[in-house]
Structure formats: C-alpha cells, structure tokens
C-alpha cells in the first residue's frame, strides 16, 4: 500500500496541492528564463557581432545534449505512466535513467565549456559569451537540481511511497527540457 504526504492528498482547487505548487514554480521559471531569453533575442538582433561569436559554439555537442534531454524526458513520462499504474519500482528505474540523462548532459556541457574557455572564450569575452554562460549555466543548475531531486524521489518510489511526486518532478523536468529546446537554436543554430 502506498503512503502520501498531505500535499498530495489535498486538492482544494481540483489539482493536488503538490502538483499545483509545481505549476506555480514553472510559471515563475517562465519569468526567469523568459526574461533572459527575451533579453538575449533583443541584444542578438541589435548586435550583429554576436553572430560571429556564436559561430564558435559546438553545434554537435548542443545537438547531442538536446537528444539526451529529449530522451530523458521520455524516461520521465514513462516513470509517470508506471507511477499511475502503481508500479513504484518501475517508476524508480525510469527516474534513475532520467537522472542519468541529466548527469550525461552536464558532463557534455563540462567538456564543451572547458574547450571554449581553453580557446579564450570566457564570461567577460563579450555580450554573447556573457549571455551564453549565464543562460546555459542557470539551465545547467536546474538540470543538476532536478537530477538530484529525481534520485531522492526514486528512492521513495522504489518502495511504492509518494508516487504522485513522480509526476511533479516529471513536469519540472519537461519544463527544463522545453527551455533547452529554445536555447539550442538560439545559442547553437542561429550563427
């Protein structure tokens, strides 16, 4: 038998409170990342030299990371499906695969950044690089936080505990995926 915290039992609005909070977090994240992306687009259109700087980003690494995040999103939603079927161990397995995707994403990013820094492109190299490291860095922190939380939830899910949390962390993860879906063309394709 599964056990649930009060956040998953209460649903005054018709949505369980835990999921409601997740949607609020996502709405606030839209402002954080949206503000950054909108600022980037404005500056990118006004500064033609940013296109020259953007030509130095590694499209192959960006594309591979997009593939990794899309695949991890698949695992996250399969975890949700397993949780709906009250199959905690299966949900936990998919959550761990999702987290693995997150760590793989960060590893690729680490190699990518190390190469770029070695080439002399650092935070202070110009407007483009300043935005590049800020946006991609903030996104990377979200990936790291999501992967860690996912492992914590997986350990509960493996024991069939707190299964509604699986959907909540999945929602967050898909949102982080959507942010990258927009970052990829902005930072790697539009050169």
């Amino acid at each position, binding site marked *: 038998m*599964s056990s*649930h915290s009060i956040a*998953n*039992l209460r649903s005054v*609005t*018709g*949505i*369980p409170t835990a999921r409601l909070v997740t*949607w609020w977090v*996502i*709405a606030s994240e*839209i*402002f954080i990342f*949206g*503000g950054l992306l*909108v*600022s980037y*687009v*404005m*500056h990118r259109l*006004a*500064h*033609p*030299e940013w296109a*020259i*700087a953007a030509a*130095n980003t590694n499209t192959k690494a960006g*594309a591979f990371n*997009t*593939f990794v995040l*899309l*695949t991890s*999103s*698949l695992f*996250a*939603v*399969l975890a949700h*499906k397993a949780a*709906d079927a*009250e199959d905690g161990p299966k949900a936990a397995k998919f959550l761990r695969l999702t987290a693995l995707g997150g760590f793989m994403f960060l590893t690729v990013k680490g190699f990518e950044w190390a190469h770029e820094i070695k080439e*002399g492109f650092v935070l202070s*190299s*110009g*407007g*483009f690089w300043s935005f590049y490291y800020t946006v991609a860095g903030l996104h990377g922190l979200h990936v790291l936080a999501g992967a860690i939380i996912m492992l914590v939830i997986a350990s509960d899910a493996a024991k069939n505990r707190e*299964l*509604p949390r699986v959907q909540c962390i*999945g*929602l967050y993860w*898909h*949102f982080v*995926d*959507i942010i990258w*879906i*927009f970052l*990829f*063309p902005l930072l790697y*394709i*539009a*050169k």
Partner: protein
Amino acid sequence: MSSESRTEAAHIHHPDYVKIWAVLVVLLIVSVLGPLTGIRWLMLFTAFGIAIVKAYLVAKNFMHVNLEKRWVTYLLVTSLVFLAILFSGVAPDIMRHQGLRWENYAAKKAVESGSQASAKHE
C-alpha cells in the same frame, strides 16, 4: 493512492510516448540540417519554427497541459503575456542604437569592438 488521485490517474490516457519521442528526434535532426542548406529563411524556420513545435509536443504529450484544469493554461499564458509586454516595452531601447535626440554610444562601441575582437579571434 487516494481515491481522488486514483480516479484522476484513471482518466489520463497515456499515448505512445516512444512514437512522440521519435517525432521529436526527427524534428531535432531537421533543425540541425536546416542551416546546411545555406538558405536564411529556411534556417530560421527549421530552427525556431521547429523549436515551437517541439515545445508544443512536449507540453501537450509529456506534461499533459491539455488535461489539466483550464486555469493552469491561463497561468502559463499570463506568464507569456507578461514576457511579451517586457519585450515590447524594452525592445525599442535595446534594439535601436540611436533615435531622434539620442544616441547609445556604448552599444555602438560594443558592436564595433565586438566585430574587431571576433575578427581577430578568427
């Protein structure tokens, strides 16, 4: 699982997620190949048009936004509307470097020095 959560879960129809993932991967490949054509409008379409389609597919099929209570959509749309207001309010100052009685020397200098620095790095 509480009876309420159980009822809700029973209502969620889980589509073939692997098929949706395959479509997303194909779209990713198209967006990477787009710039290779060298056609600017096609590159912009394959990059940003496809990004919007991919985001829609993830939001609809993985996040199930369409199955949530309607005001979740209102919440998300409101956030996007505020972003549009931010853009339209700030864009005229950022995207232009001079107007009728003003000139943004710092931005102009940044364009000039940025172009030189990038050219030197090449």
